[in-house]
C-alpha cells in the first residue's frame, strides 16, 4: 500500500516538473514575441534611415540596407548646405530644446521639492487645500491653458522665446513635481525634522542638509518624468514659439511636413531618431533608479 502511494506521489511530482518547464518556455516565448513587436518600429526606423532613397522605393520595409550610409543623418542634423535655403535641419533646434529643458527641469524639480517639504513638514492652516489645488493642476488638460498662457506670456513680453517656454513648462510641471516630492517626504518621519529643529537648523538648513541628501530616488524619478515630458512636448512648443525659437519637436514636424519635393523617408527617420535620443539616454542612464524611486517607501534611518 505504502509503496503504491509513494509511486503515485512520484508520478505527480514528475508531471508537475514537466508542466512547470512547459509553462516556463511558453512564458519566455510570449515575452520574446512582445519584445519583438515593440522593437520592430525602432528597427524599421534605424534600417530606413541608413538606406538610400532607391532602396526605400523598392518597398522592403524590413530588409537590411545594402550599404550603410550615414548621409541622411548628416542631412537631418546639419542640412545639405546652401543649395536648398528653405530646408529645415535639426541642429539649432536641438540646442533650443536643450536650453529649454535643462532650466525647466531644474527649476520645476527644485521648487517641487521645496513645496513637498513645506507641505509635509511645516504644516500650516489650509495646507491640505493647497495640496489639493496642486493636485488639481495635474488634471488640467494642456489645451485648457493655451489661451490664458499665451496672454500671460504676451504681457510678460516673453512670447516666442525660450524663456517663455521654460516658464510654461515650469508652471505646468510644478503640480507633478510637488505631488512626487510630497508623497516621498510624507513617508519620512517627522521626528527627524523635530530633531533638526532642536539642533538649531532652520527651514532651509533642514531642507538642504537633512532632507535633500536623502531625496535622490525621488529626484531621479522627477527629473526623468519632467525631462521626457518637456523634451517630447509638441503642443506648447508649437503654440508659443515659431521660427528660430522653436524646440526640436516643432522643428521635426516642420521638417517632415515642409519637404517640398519628394518625401525623404531616410532623412525623416534619422531626424525622428535624433529627436528621441536624449530621452533614450536619460532612460538608459537612470532607468533603474526610476523603478527604484517609484517603489521607494520610507528611508531607513
Amino acid at each position, binding site marked *: 500500500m505504502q509503496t503504491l502511494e509513494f509511486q503515485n506521489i512520484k508520478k505527480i511530482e514528475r508531471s508537475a516538473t514537466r508542466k512547470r518547464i512547459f509553462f516556463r518556455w511558453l512564458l519566455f516565448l510570449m515575452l520574446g514575441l512582445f519584445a519583438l513587436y515593440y522593437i520592430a518600429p525602432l528597427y524599421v526606423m534605424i534600417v530606413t534611415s541608413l538606406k538610400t532613397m532607391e532602396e526605400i522605393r523598392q518597398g522592403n520595409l524590413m530588409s537590411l540596407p545594402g550599404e550603410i550610409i550615414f548621409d541622411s543623418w548628416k542631412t537631418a542634423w546639419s542640412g545639405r548646405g546652401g543649395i536648398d535655403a528653405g530646408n529645415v535641419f535639426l541642429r539649432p533646434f536641438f540646442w533650443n530644446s536643450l536650453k529649454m529643458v535643462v532650466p525647466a527641469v531644474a527649476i520645476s524639480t527644485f521648487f517641487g521639492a521645496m513645496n513637498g517639504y513645506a507641505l509635509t513638514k511645516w504644516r500650516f492652516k489650509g495646507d491640505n487645500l493647497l495640496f489639493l489645488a496642486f493636485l488639481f493642476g495635474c488634471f488640467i488638460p494642456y489645451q485648457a491653458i493655451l489661451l490664458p498662457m499665451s496672454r500671460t506670456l504676451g504681457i510678460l513680453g516673453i512670447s516666442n522665446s525660450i524663456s517663455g517656454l521654460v516658464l510654461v513648462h515650469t508652471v505646468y510641471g510644478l503640480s507633478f513635481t510637488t505631488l512626487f516630492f510630497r508623497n516621498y517626504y510624507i513617508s519620512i518621519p517627522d521626528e527627524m525634522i523635530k530633531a*533638526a529643529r*532642536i539642533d538649531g*537648523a532652520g527651514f532651509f538648513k533642514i531642507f538642504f542638509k537633512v532632507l535633500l541628501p536623502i531625496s535622490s530616488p525621488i529626484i531621479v524619478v522627477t527629473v526623468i518624468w519632467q525631462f521626457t515630458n518637456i523634451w517630447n512636448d509638441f503642443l506648447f512648443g508649437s503654440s508659443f514659439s515659431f521660427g528660430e525659437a522653436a524646440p526640436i519637436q516643432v522643428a521635426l514636424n516642420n521638417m517632415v511636413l515642409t519637404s517640398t519635393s519628394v518625401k525623404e523617408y531616410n532623412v525623416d527617420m534619422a531626424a525622428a531618431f535624433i529627436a528621441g535620443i536624449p530621452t533614450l539616454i536619460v532612460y538608459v542612464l537612470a532607468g533603474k533608479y526610476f523603478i527604484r524611486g517609484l517603489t521607494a517607501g520610507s528611508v531607513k534611518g
Partner: protein
Amino acid sequence: MATLKVNNLTKDFGNTKVLKQINLEVSDGEFIVLLGPSGCGKSTLLNMIAGLESVDEGEIIIDEYVVNRVEPKDRNIAMVFQSYALYPAMTVRNNVIFGLKQRKVSKEHIEKSLNRFSKMLQIDQLLDRKPAQLSGGQRQRVAMGRALVREPQIFLFDEPLSNLDAKLRVEMRHEINKLHEQLGTTMIYVTHDQVEAMSLATRIAVMNEGIIQQIGTPQEIYDQPNSIFVADFVGSPSINLVPGKFSVEKNQFFFIPKQMEENFKIPLKDYKFNNRPSEGQEVIFGFRPEHINLEDKSLKFQIELNLEPILIELTGYEQNITFDFMGHEVIGRLPRNINAQVGKAISLSLNLSEISIFDKISTNRI
C-alpha cells in the same frame, strides 16, 4: 541646570482636548517620568516643553523665564526620540556634532565634546559609519550622544527605549540611569512602560486623558495610588481589585466583599482614610499580588485565607498563582518552592498594612 514649571497648560487638536490644565513643577536635577497609556497626552506635553507644539493656554517656564514662544533651539534643551531620528545622509560624527555646528561652537570644543561623549557612550568606534550601518542599540546611543554633546539644561526623552528588544532595553535603562547620576541634569522622560518609570524616576507623573492623575515618588505611586487608574496601571501583575462595600460596627471598619453569603469581613484597622466612608458605601478593595503570602504570623495586620489555585504561572524566580477569592480572580506572587496544585487549597495570609481602598463611583482613593 534648570528648573521647569508648567502652569495650567492646555492643548486642543481640533475638537479633542489633548491636555487639560496641566500643572507640573520640576526642580533642578530631577528625573521626572511622564507615565501613561498611549493617547494620554504625555508626548504632546513633552513636545510642548520642547517647543515643537504651540501652547494654546497656560505657561511653560524654564528657570523663571516664560518660554511659550521661544524657538526649540533657543530653549537649551535636547531631545531623544523613539525612532532615533538620526540624519540618514550624515555619518555618526556629523549626526552628533550637527547641533554644535549650527551653534557655531569652536572646532576645538566640538572635538573635545565629541571625544568625551562618544567614549562615554561607546560609539567612538562608529564615528565614520552611516546610521543605516548601525544596529538598533547603536543608533539609540548615537541619538543620545547627539543630545549629550549639546550639554543642555534639560533632557527630554520620548519613549527612547520602545524600539529596542527586551534585553537591550534593560541595558540602556541602566545607562540612562548612570548618565543621570553622572551629569545630574534635569531629565523628563516619557514612557508607557511602568517598569522603566519605576526604575528611572525620582518622581513619576501618571497621566490619563490629558490629566496628571498623580505625581509622586515611585514608592508613593506604587504603595498609595490615589485612583483605581494609577493602581491598575502601575505594577505587574496588576493590583487585585475586589468590589464590595464598607461597613462600620462598633467604631470598627470592615470591608465586605460582594456576593458574600457568609459573614466574611476584612477588618480595616490600620488603614489611613483620606475621608471616612459611610456605612454601606460601595468600594473597591485593592491589594498587590505580593501581599498574598504563605501563612505568616509575624505580620502585624493580616487575615488568614484558604484559597484554591486556578492557574499557576512560573516566572522563574517565583510563581504567579491565580486564586479563586470568593468568586473573584486574584493573583498572588509566591515563592516557587511551594508545591501549588490547581484545585488544592493553600493556607495563606493577606497582608493588610499596604492595601488601598477606592470609591466605586469616583474611583478615587478613600
